[in-house]
């Protein structure tokens, strides 16, 4: 079925021109800037995720792309044409709604055919396209059911098929999996990615679930207070966050505030109040401030009973923090530990349970050394 699905027309656009350019777009609601002069380029064929806490403006931005809200300022260029003022029903963009918004009085088939009828396709064209869509999302046999006669997962598929049927240049997905249970959500994430890859279509997904964003998207834009904090690949976002806020919003992190003492041989020495001096790899962007925060992900923090032997001639290259294990949480795949340092600060560590029987596991109240290398640390200025 999918092979018959034609590649996107927009794919013919020059590769370096973004399919969608959001240019200094702003939207106010009652004096509050929901979206604050935000700019973003999205290339054809991307799976882009807008991630942020609720109220950050990501849904408003999506609704402006769909045409349900009109920007107060700025332009939205689709293939070079400003569509900011174009009405929703005249945009080659479709949206999959958060609660699916299936038409309750229409059958599954008629829901999928809805957009095709409005596009003025012939009856036979509609039948062909609906059959194609039904096959694509594996809904065979349910065509004559009404939305209240199918399960949540099936509704989600109908909504997806309906929004894909018109072959939009951009598909917007507003928290598409929020209503599904965890298992179904995970399998649906995989299917969404597979579908997006096969169709070569541009997907923009809005989600508050960072795991979901990292799973499905090739690029993530993290929003806060109407602004994009960082736009990066999932790995960059996690391993090289540009601010404390991002580091804390995406995944778990240990943060130590301190002052830059010295820099030598690509190493910064940051003296912290609670964890002594931490050696950190110097970032590519030079540090301008002296007051910084050092961020280390818990899985980069290893525990051992004795301090690890430093490499020869690299004596200062390993950071060691001594403390007492206060909390052990066994989560199956990993175990997380909380280590209380002598200064009273808490360092979190997580380690993979690579062996079924681990005689070496740490217990609460055990004295340990938490250690990590300078390359595992990120220096953050804000």
């Amino acid at each position, binding site marked *: 079925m999918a092979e018959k699905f034609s590649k996107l027309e927009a794919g013919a656009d020059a590769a370096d021109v973004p399919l969608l350019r959001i240019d200094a777009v702003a939207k106010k609601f009652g004096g509050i800037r929901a979206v604050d002069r935000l700019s973003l380029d999205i290339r054809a064929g991307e799976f882009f995720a807008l991630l942020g806490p609720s109220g950050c403006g990501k849904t408003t931005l999506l609704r402006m792309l769909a045409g*349900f809200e009109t920007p107060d300022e700025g332009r939205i260029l689709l293939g070079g044409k400003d569509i900011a003022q174009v009405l929703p029903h005249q945009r080659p963009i479709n949206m999959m709604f958060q*609660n699916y918004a299936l038409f309750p009085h229409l059958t599954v088939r008629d829901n999928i055919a809805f957009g095709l009828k*409005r596009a003025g396709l012939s009856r036979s064209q509609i039948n062909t396209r609906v059959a194609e869509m039904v096959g694509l999302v594996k809904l065979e046999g349910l065509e004559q059911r009404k939305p209240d006669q199918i399960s949540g997962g099936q509704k989600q598929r109908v909504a997806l098929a309906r929004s894909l049927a*018109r072959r939009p240049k951009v598909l917007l997905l507003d928290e598409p999996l929020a209503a599904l249970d965890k298992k179904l959500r995970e399998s649906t994430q995989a299917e969404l990615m597979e579908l997006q890859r096969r169709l070569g279509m541009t997907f923009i997904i809005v989600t508050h679930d960072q795991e979901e964003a990292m799973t499905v998207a090739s690029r993530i834009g993290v929003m806060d207070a109407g602004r994009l904090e960082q736009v990066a690949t999932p790995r960059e976002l996690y391993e090289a966050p540009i601010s404390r806020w991002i580091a804390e919003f995406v995944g778990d992190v240990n943060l130590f505030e301190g002052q830059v003492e010295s820099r030598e041989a690509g190493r910064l020495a940051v003296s912290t109040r609670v964890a002594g001096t931490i050696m950190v790899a110097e970032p590519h962007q030079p540090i301008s401030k002296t007051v910084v925060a050092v961020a280390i992900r818990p899985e980069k923090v290893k525990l051992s009973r004795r301090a690890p032997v430093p490499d020869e001639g690299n004596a200062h290259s390993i950071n060691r923090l001594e403390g007492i294990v206060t909390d052990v949480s066994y989560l199956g795949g990993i175990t997380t530990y909380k280590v209380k340092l002598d200064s009273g600060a808490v360092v979190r560590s997580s380690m993979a349970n690579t062996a079924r029987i681990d005689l070496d596991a740490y217990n609460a109240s055990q004295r340990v050394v938490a250690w990590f290398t300078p390359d595992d640390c990120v220096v953050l200025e804000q």
Partner: protein
Amino acid sequence: MSARRIFTRPARLAAILPYLWMVLFFLVPFGFVLKISLSQTAIAQPPYLPVFDPTQGFAAIKAALAELSLDNFRLLVSDNLYVFSYSRSLVVAVVSTSILLVIGYPIAYGMARLPRRWQGIAMMLVIVPFWTSFLIRIYAWINILQHDGLLNKILLALHLVSTPVVWLSTDSAMYLGIVYSYLPFMILPLYATLAKMDPALLEAAGDLGASPRQAFWVVTFPLSLPGVAAGALLCFIPIMGEFVIPDLLAGSNSLMIGQTLWLEFFTNKDWPVASAVAVVLLVLLVGPLVLYDRLQRRELEGSG
């Protein structure tokens, strides 16, 4: 079936109450009316024969039963007066309900799209006329519509007419009165249906290429049909039997069935024929009621 399991004994007893109510205040009186409709008019107290008297014994009741006949119903069919009255009631009810729908739908639609805090106020405005007695409101209309009433004064002042227009005792006045009185009954069920509709459905329709006008006709209107049916029946059924408004505002040359019934009962003192008229009206109205019930049940099943 599951009701037995869900409801405890006291709950089941409580469920009997509405049935008891129906039997006491609907079925029993209807039995009386039905019996009188099968009787003959008489100059007596009560003004019909036969009269059942349980004290006279079984044979007397048997004899009284034998006297009952369908003569009154034959009269209703044979005399054009009744057929005309029924048809006029039907025409008035159909026309009024249509006008009510055309006026009430946009109002209900507008109310449902108001910001939340304004919806309550709009609802109050719709209900507020009920706080004044229905009769006073109709008499107020007589005042407005009469020869030197407010309406004619305004029309003359605006030089839209040169002589006062006759409004009272016309069908226009009657329709005006009916539409005015029944409008809330049309608006409220429509509003209830439209207000609970998910606005995302209209956005979805727009997103899928439907213009606002198309979206209304393919999404909003079909989804509001249960409300349309409820409003229409809530208006149609009482308008069929309407007596006061046509009596006060319409001319006297053609009567609605309610007026005919009143005439038979109070002017002609013919209780049996009046009862027959009432029985036939009831039977005519049970049709739409059953229809209404079915529509409601379908909606319940649809939403459940």
